[in-house]
């Protein structure tokens, strides 16, 4: 068994037993990063020296008997989390020279728990995308290949594509992601990982470069549900620096993993059986239903009638907030500046050079939907429909404990595919967006491979702040699926 086969829980046990040291583990990962990242481009910035220092500190902590489950665990941090003294780009050229003098709350908590940070993971620019191709630092290659075509490069999904590829290729043991409309769940599904978007407000957004403030939420991406639970234990919690973070106790999520699903009522929303959905995905969904039924869950047909408006609402609300959140990148105080003849000229040149086409498109959409004369027809209406979508979920959760759906409408697609028009790309988020709009927790677990040998995921959606049930149901699927496939392209 290779050191790279260890999950967090296993590595942590070996660290505690002094069978391996954090320095050994980190050195192995640093070397793997150096070997594979040039090809995968999963990291924008790597920090091997910092990782080694952290590993030494972790070993000292372990020796002193002061370790947590994450002490000495090498992870990737999505480059949307500000990290003190380490360049943070949000995958945008406009932040190319930006080194934050502060640390995001979530990454600070992980560091405080003793996690080792290998580097900053690639993503879609400002987390806007579903394929990681909008990154200003180049696309990320999915380590998974179609069985019949090992040469074709596939996307890892997005926006947390670098995090997904890094964990799947085992050049990180786990990673942080952020999810605005599916940015943790869809790439997790595309790369055979588990990933959870917690309830909005569960993790602090402080220090995370904002995309759409009312939707953004940090979460873990890892090999399995247990590792996700260990990470989320450390990441979650109220933060007085984020007014939208929730003042709630954080349970030990690992305790929910073995609860089982006996007696749980699992909702199957009729509206997610979209016409034209890949039959393999539908078949996997049916399999998931069977697994849960077999383990004693009651399957309930439910309706989430406003699901069909989810994407439309999302692509109004998210760009609206983004257009405002990204106004600060003006070249005045930090980041890139392109001088101009006057202030307006400097703004225009800076933003023209600094933002990529997808970001510009969303800023324009967002500006448009908030404009005088259009606000009521777009933004206000979208907010109303968002409330209806939330009501769909709260109504459903009066009768069910969790909801099971596919994570994405397809498996990972090829780099360069779905590029004809943005709407095709936006359709990737069709199953993930409703939970984001409602703020409820949702997790993707790997559940099988398609005919091409690519991983597929199922999504478990839970009630507000009931990540425990989400973990319980996800773990049940994980056990039943027995997903053990690995990409050939990985650290061994």
């Amino acid at each position: 068994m290779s050191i790279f086969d260890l999950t967090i829980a296993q590595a942590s046990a070996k660290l505690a037993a002094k069978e391996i040291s954090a320095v050994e583990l980190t050195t192995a990962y640093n070397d793997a990063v150096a070997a594979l990242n040039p090809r995968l481009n999963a990291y924008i910035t790597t920090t091997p020296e910092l990782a080694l220092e952290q590993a030494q500190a972790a070993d000292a902590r372990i020796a002193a008997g002061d370790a947590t489950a994450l002490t000495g665990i090498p992870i990737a941090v999505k480059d949307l989390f500000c990290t003190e003294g380490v360049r943070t780009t949000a995958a945008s050229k406009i932040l190319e020279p930006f080194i934050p003098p502060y640390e995001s709350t979530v990454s600070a908590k992980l560091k405080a728990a003793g996690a080792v940070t290998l580097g900053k993971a690639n993503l879609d620019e400002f987390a806007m995308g579903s394929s990681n191709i909008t990154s200003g630092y180049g696309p990320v290659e999915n380590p998974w290949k179609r069985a019949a075509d090992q040469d074709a490069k596939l996307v890892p999904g997005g926006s947390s594509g670098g995090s997904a590829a890094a964990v799947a290729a085992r050049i990180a043991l786990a990673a942080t992601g952020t999810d605005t409309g599916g940015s943790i769940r869809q790439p997790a599904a595309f790369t055979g990982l588990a990933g959870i978007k917690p309830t909005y407000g569960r993790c602090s957004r402080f220090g995370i470069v904002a995309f759409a403030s009312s939707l953004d939420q940090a979460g873990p991406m890892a090999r399995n549900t247990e590792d996700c639970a260990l990470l989320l234990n450390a990441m979650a919690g109220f933060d007085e620096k984020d007014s939208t973070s929730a003042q709630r106790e954080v349970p030990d999520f690992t305790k929910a993993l073995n609860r089982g699903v006996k007696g749980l009522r699992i909702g199957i929303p009729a509206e997610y059986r979209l016409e034209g959905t890949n039959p393999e995905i539908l078949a996997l969904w049916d399999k998931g239903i069977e697994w849960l039924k077999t383990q004693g869950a009651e399957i309930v047909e439910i309706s989430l009638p406003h699901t069909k408006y989810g994407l439309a609402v999302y692509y109004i609300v998210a760009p609206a907030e983004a257009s405002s959140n990204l106004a600060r990148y003006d070249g005045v105080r930090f980041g890139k500046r392109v001088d101009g003849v006057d202030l307006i000229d400097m703004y225009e040149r800076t933003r023209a050079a600094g933002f990529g086409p997808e970001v510009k498109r969303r800023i324009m959409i967002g500006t448009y939907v908030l404009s005088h004369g259009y606000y009521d027809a777009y933004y206000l209406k979208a907010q109303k429909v968002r409330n209806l979508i939330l009501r769909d979920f709260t109504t459903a959760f009066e009768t069910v404990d969790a909801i099971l759906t596919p994570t994405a409408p397809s498996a990972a697609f090829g780099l360069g595919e779905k590029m004809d028009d943005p709407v095709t790309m936006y359709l990737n988020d069709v199953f993930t967006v409703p939970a984001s709009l409602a703020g409820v927790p949702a997790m993707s677990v790997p559940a099988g491979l398609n005919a091409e040998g690519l991983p597929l995921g199922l999504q478990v959606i839970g009630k507000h702040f009931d990540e425990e049930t989400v973990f319980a149901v996800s773990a049940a699927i994980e056990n039943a699926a027995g997903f053990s496939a690995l990409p050939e392209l990985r650290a061994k």
Partner: protein
Amino acid sequence: MAYMLEGRTGAWEVVVGLEIHAQVISESKLFSGASATYGGAPNAHVSFVDAGFPGMLPVINKECVAQAVRTGLGLKAKINLFSRFDRKNYFYADLPNGYQISQFEHPIVGTGIVEIELQDGTLKQIGITRLHLEQDAGKSMHDQHASKSVIDLNRAGVALMEIVSEPDIRSPEEAGAYLRKIRQIVRYLGTCDGNMEEGSMRADVNVSVRKPGEEFRTRCEIKNVNSVRFVMHAVEAEAMRQIEVWESGGEVVQETRLYDPSKGETRSMRSKEDAHDYRYFPEPDLLPLVLEQSFVDDLAAKLPELPDEKRRRFCDDYGIPFYDAGVLVADQATADFYESVAKGRDGKLTANWMSGDFFAAMNRTGKSIENPPVSAADFGALLDLITDKTINGRIAKDVFEEMVETGKAPGAIVEEKGLRQVTDTGAIDAAVTKVLADNQDKVAEYKSGKDKLFGFFVGQVMKAMQGKGNPALVNEAVKKQLG
């Protein structure tokens, strides 16, 4: 008499509404922990939140909320237990986030009423439309460098209250009185220092004109006027300009204008077509602001007495005229000083002395009520010496001047200089006898009917007694001896 401007086509009425931006007194800024104090080296009071760094989030400062509620209570306004922050989006170099966090649809304070007093003593009520909380922007300076502008973000993020009036104001005088009244109220409340020179209070002035009885016509907004005097001038200048436009067959267009005090005129800044589209939408980084009624009640219970109430109480408690009470309550410190002296003394006597010799001495010596020319205790002691007839009013003026000059207590001065009032009738009679004997010609004139000379004799007697004679006794003795 209503204020009207006479044009070629007759009389015009002026219609004015004010938006006052009042900087909240607080330790730290509205959404960050940075210091909100005025001054400091440029960019010394700036947090990453204020500078709009990536990933930074606003956190509401409870004290600023309390200050807004106090102000709302002082304006006799409705406190909205539910309010919400919105983003007002526009690009400018001194607006770090590219948006200002403000309250658009749901302000923290709703409608209220303020009473103003005009020169002729008329009282008038001006409606308050709303008060909302918002952040200030930073400061751009364009004259510090040949080709660059420089930015100071010390003020960026400081809490402002925008107090919006109804278009109830009808003259420059009313505009000035309203602005002064708001300033007086916020100063009493301690919610804004009202210092217009430092920019902690400034006004946007909305002006239109109309023929009496008409509906409102198009208004123009004059931005950022920073003194009471300028507001009054700006109203008049803008009203005159609009009358000229209408009367020459033109049409006033809605626009934003600037007042130029050096030329005494307003100038167009940007027209309606160029107006910003602020793209307001609810601030997603903040939850709606929900107040408990008990929080409001608690602030209401601890609210200081406001100038209107204090003025009425001064009239009742101290028996002084409404006008005098108005002067004394002009600011809290003066009112407190007055009250500390008047309490247990003759309120009228205190008021007269304060409006007379005391204020005169204060102005002459360049002192202030916080650093008065004589202390409240000494001032009271002086009034006591008058009341118990130790000294007379004439001597008291001299003693007061001596107090101002030397800082000595009045009792000490009286003793030192032997200024006690003479009430010994024997001594007074002797003085009168001598004066009459020395001025026999005048006595003869008096007796032949020149009554006015009575005052002359009294004056001569007082002079002979170095002013120390009891005036009533001296009068009596003169009258008696003149027969």
